[in-house]
């Protein structure tokens, strides 16, 4: 530690690793005394000696994590316009319900007769997603969005294999999330990238050329709609027709479903498979990086390939289908992220079909409002209207040397979480702003004013913005050293110091 702890720092308290607070003999739990003699233990191996865990008391643990929490920024702290991530309000009701012992203290291998309420909830959630997508059936198994993509592509592969040819190629637009090409590659497919046109949309000529070249080697087209540029793909019906014509499947990355939930059914757009990110559209908390949940809905033709288990209703009883001849099999241990199902289901019930429609409309209105308010201050690579997120770049600031990174860091000094930066990759210096529907107009207006002020500072005093942030728990980090000489554990850190 290079910080002098006696420096006055107000409430920005410094905190060191628990390892550095450890003193032998301290404990944060009280257990009954136990000492196993050699002949008493039946592990067949000697008792573990030193583990090297820290030794601290409960008050120290509480204070440690409370102090750490104060160095974080969450949706509950303020506006979080992180494009593509749908950082919307997380209702506390959902947390409370997921913690009911009837949901949290049940075991995945209990007899099904003893978990009928849970199975009913899962069955209802499947039905809600079937109805919202217009597709035939939904699996709840995948653990996150990327895992849902993997499941979706596996089903597509299985369906093609069933017809005698797994095919070789998956088409992915160059504006796609990195998970799309990574998913297709993990499934053994070759990725053919489809260039975007000057409007940020799928270049139909490029698509035609790829179809011409690869024809029936194409297993699927993976499209994010609305796109990662925040645009609704106007040619989507046409694209679907082209894809179906060669017997390929139309996969939609549902990461941006928030723009159209309760407003448009993906099946009506010709989509065959779509994953949801329950931690985006249906508001299960991001938790600093997870857990998520990534159900997938599929068209009737793909239902035989759904992973197991699937929840069905037989008479008055709910049942897990755990074997199906053409199923791709199990994709995750047990039945999926059940705790997330409770939260998402509560969210859906709270909104209803009328509320979900409002979700999409307010999310889209908020984004367009920001787009129109900032179009003179930042470069807009594509014309709107946008959907639930709007895209700018740092092109207008180029001459000043101020970049997207600087604007993002500047925002943190003003108490905002930055927008998504440098994504999508098809424009230089991207700033992708997604306000979501749960922001009051005042917060959005304040953000707009701050963005204008940063654009102004960039013109007047670019050096000042390069020094931002100044008022955050940490200033800019040395990421280069972190990557050149990775220190990934306390033990490695000690070796480095020694």
């Amino acid at each position, binding site marked *: 530690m290079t910080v002098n702890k006696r420096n006055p720092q107000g409430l920005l308290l410094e905190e060191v690793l628990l390892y550095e607070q450890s003193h032998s003999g301290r*404990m944060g739990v009280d*257990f009954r005394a136990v000492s*196993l003699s050699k002949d008493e233990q039946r592990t067949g191996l000697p008792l573990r000696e030193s583990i090297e865990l820290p030794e601290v008391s409960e008050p120290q643990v509480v204070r440690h994590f409370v102090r750490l929490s104060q160095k974080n920024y969450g949706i509950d702290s303020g506006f979080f316009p992180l494009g593509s991530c749908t950082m919307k309000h997380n209702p506390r*009701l959902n947390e409370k319900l997921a913690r009911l012992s009837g949901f949290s203290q049940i075991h995945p291998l209990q*007899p099904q007769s003893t978990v009928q309420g849970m199975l009913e909830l899962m069955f209802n959630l499947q039905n809600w997603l079937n109805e919202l997508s217009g597709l035939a059936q939904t699996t709840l198994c995948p653990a996150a969005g990327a895992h849902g993509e993997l499941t979706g592509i596996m089903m597509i592969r299985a369906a093609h294999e069933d017809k005698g040819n797994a095919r070789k190629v998956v088409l992915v637009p160059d504006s796609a999330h990195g998970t799309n090409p990574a998913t297709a590659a993990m499934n053994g497919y070759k990725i053919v990238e489809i260039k975007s046109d000057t409007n940020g949309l799928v270049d139909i000529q490029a698509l035609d050329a790829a179809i011409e070249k690869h024809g029936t080697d194409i297993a699927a087209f993976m499209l994010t709609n609305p796109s990662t540029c925040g645009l609704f793909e106007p040619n989507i019906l046409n694209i679907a027709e082209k894809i179906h014509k060669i017997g390929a499947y139309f996969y939609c990355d549902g990461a941006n479903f928030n723009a159209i939930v309760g407003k448009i059914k993906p099946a009506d757009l010709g989509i065959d498979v779509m994953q949801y990110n329950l931690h985006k559209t249906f508001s299960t908390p991001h938790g600093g990086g997870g857990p998520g949940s990534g159900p997938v809905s599929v068209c009737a033709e793909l239902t035989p390939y759904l992973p197991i288990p699937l929840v069905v209703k037989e008479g008055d009883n709910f049942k897990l289908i755990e074997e199906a001849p053409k199923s791709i099999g199990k994709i*995750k241990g047990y039945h999926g*992220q059940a705790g997330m199902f409770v939260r998402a289901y509560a969210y859906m019930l709270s909104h209803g079909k009328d509320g979900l429609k409002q979700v999409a409309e307010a999310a889209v209105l908020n984004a367009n409002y920001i787009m129109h308010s900032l179009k003179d201050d930042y470069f807009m690579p594509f014309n709107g209207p946008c959907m639930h997120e709007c895209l700018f770049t740092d092109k207008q600031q180029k001459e000043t040397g101020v970049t997207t990174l600087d604007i993002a860091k500047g925002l943190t000094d003003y108490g905002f979480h930055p927008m998504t930066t440098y994504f999508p990759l098809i424009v230089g210096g991207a700033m992708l702003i997604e306000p979501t529907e749960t922001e009051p*107009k005042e917060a959005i207006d304040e953000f707009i004013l701050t963005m204008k002020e940063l654009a102004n500072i960039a013109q007047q005093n670019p050096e000042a913005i390069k020094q931002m942030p100044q008022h955050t728990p940490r200033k800019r980090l040395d990421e280069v050293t972190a990557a050149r000489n990775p220190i990934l554990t306390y033990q490695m*850190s000690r070796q480095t110091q020694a």
Partner: protein
Amino acid sequence: MRYIPLSEQDKQQMLERCGVTDINALFCHAPQHTLDPAYNLPNHMGELEVERHLVSLANKNKDFAHNTSFLGAGCYRHHIPATVDMVIQRSEFLTAYTPYQPEIAQGTLMALFEFQSYISTLTGQPVANASMYDGATAMAEAALMAQRVTKRSNIVYDTDIHPDYKAVLKTYLSHIDGEFTESASPAETVNEQTAAYIVQWPNFKGDIADLNKLKSTCQQQGALLIVVVTEIVALGILPAPNQADIVVGEAQSIGNAMSYGGPHLGFFACQESMVRQMPGRLCGQTTDADGRTSYVLTLNTREQHIRRAKATSNICTNQGLCALAFTVHMSLLGEQGFKQLAQINHQNACHLADALTSLNGVQVLNTTFFNEFVVRLPFSAPKLVADLANEGILAGYALNDTDLLVCATEMTTNEDMHHLVQAIRIEIEGK
């Protein structure tokens, strides 16, 4: 709708700035006939109504708060200190995103660094990542990494691995060339084309293998040894599995509720030489512009958002909050507490095993175990499970017609054990 703040007046002002009069004008690029279809769904509900509905569903389940249980099989019931839930419900942790902006995410990052440190030291592996979805997917990813590291494609795995883990492995590898062999005798099946041998430790039936022997078998053939741990509490009593090249598994036991099978907490640890082949996020220590110790996600070029089709995995969102829960709970336990917890688990399991073997015709099949073992019953195991479930006792997991996998943890009381023993006694004497 209580979660959406825009008033009618707000909407009018905002539409005006957008230069339109109607919200549907903003959806002008969508095929117009697809807008606003009919949904066969209810309208919104108030908080009270939602709560009533979900409480009624929850009440239909037999939960462990009101029933006795001996179920384990990869998902364990342990006591979670109150502090854990307090911390993970802190807004700043619960509602934060992945810490891509480290200046305002040091809380999540330092906790991840502590998580990685704990997993590393528990497993005896030099590096650990910031979590995987669950133990089953972690094991599949370990097999994929072994293929990348060794440039071999065959995988051999032990028979007594959790059936879900085997099933997920099969699904993940289904399109990959190479042989996947189930084998309880690696000395005969691991050869110079084998990327890795996978063993669960303790295994699905509770037995604990000698890793030294497995290590030398693998080493002779240049194959990696992957050790899978589904009950991480075992690492408080067993020596660190540092013979392994990769240790993966499930850490739900510490800090995380069973929650009908998820969200749980996959972990992934391995040798330092493989760090650039690892899947998932890694948090590293560095300094900020003022030279203060700081934490940041690092080695990002392995990941999908940068490497795209060439990424080591497609994983993005992981189990961040579950890793935090683990870290808080493990911090409370500490060196002594964690060892004591493991010993209490083992002691209770030993008591249960003794009590059950005292019954006529009941036999414990394990020679070694930690907190879980197999009993052979003189009558139908599935029937016992079904019958006792009606009486509020979840007797365990029936492996086949006669064998029952039972588990005891620190939650298992003498009274619980007495109930199970009595129930089995009645069943025997009834015969």
